[in-house]
């Protein structure tokens, strides 16, 4: 049998291994709370199904071609880029709000927890801005 999608095969093996391990753990430890166990078994079976599907698809030429087309599809790539960009933008606004609120709360209450929130949010937002500038310079030169 020829492997057409090595990456898919690797992910298939990983998912199958994790699913099988979780299923084994659930079966070995049957003393837990029943609804929790059912949830855990269902999740394990889903992981196992994903793994086996990926494993089988890696040996099929047609399925591997479909996976490759899906992965390289330019609209899908654009959507992934836009999603990542929008997520980052929203997170930056949330962090900016947390920074301002943290500062205001610290000024009014002098509680160190708010000061830490202000410092942490401020530092992360500065780091994000620096990475964003570096990435922009990099892509400006390369594109």
């Amino acid at each position: 049998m020829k492997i057409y999608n090595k990456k898919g095969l690797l992910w298939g093996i990983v998912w199958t291994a994790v699913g099988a391990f979780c299923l084994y753990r659930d079966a070995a430890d049957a003393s837990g709370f029943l609804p929790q166990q059912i949830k855990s078994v269902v999740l394990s079976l889903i992981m196992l199904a994903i793994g086996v599907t990926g494993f089988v698809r890696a040996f099929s030429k047609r399925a591997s071609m479909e996976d490759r087309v899906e992965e390289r599809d330019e609209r899908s790539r654009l959507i992934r880029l836009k999603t990542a960009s929008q997520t980052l933008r929203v997170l930056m606004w949330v962090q900016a709000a947390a920074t301002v609120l943290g500062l205001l709360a610290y000024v009014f209450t002098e509680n160190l927890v708010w000061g830490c929130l202000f410092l942490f949010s401020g530092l992360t937002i500065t780091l994000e801005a620096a990475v964003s500038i570096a990435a922009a310079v990099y892509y400006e030169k390369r594109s």
Partner: protein
Amino acid sequence: MKNRVKEFRAALGLTQQQLAGLAHVTARTIISIEKGQYSPSLLLAYRIALALGTPMETLYCLEENKQQEDQQYEDL
């Protein structure tokens, strides 16, 4: 961007899935292009034009789209 992909595809009796297969993209991309929601890259536009056997200028209404964009620039 306005285009006539749907019209030419239907004339050839191709499904969206078949055209997607010929252009090496997903059917969702073809649907988006036909609806005018997504503008394809130059290479994909060329692949689709080849698959449909139509010049790109006709398929993507280039003159009409250019005039529309020119108008938008003039309105600025």
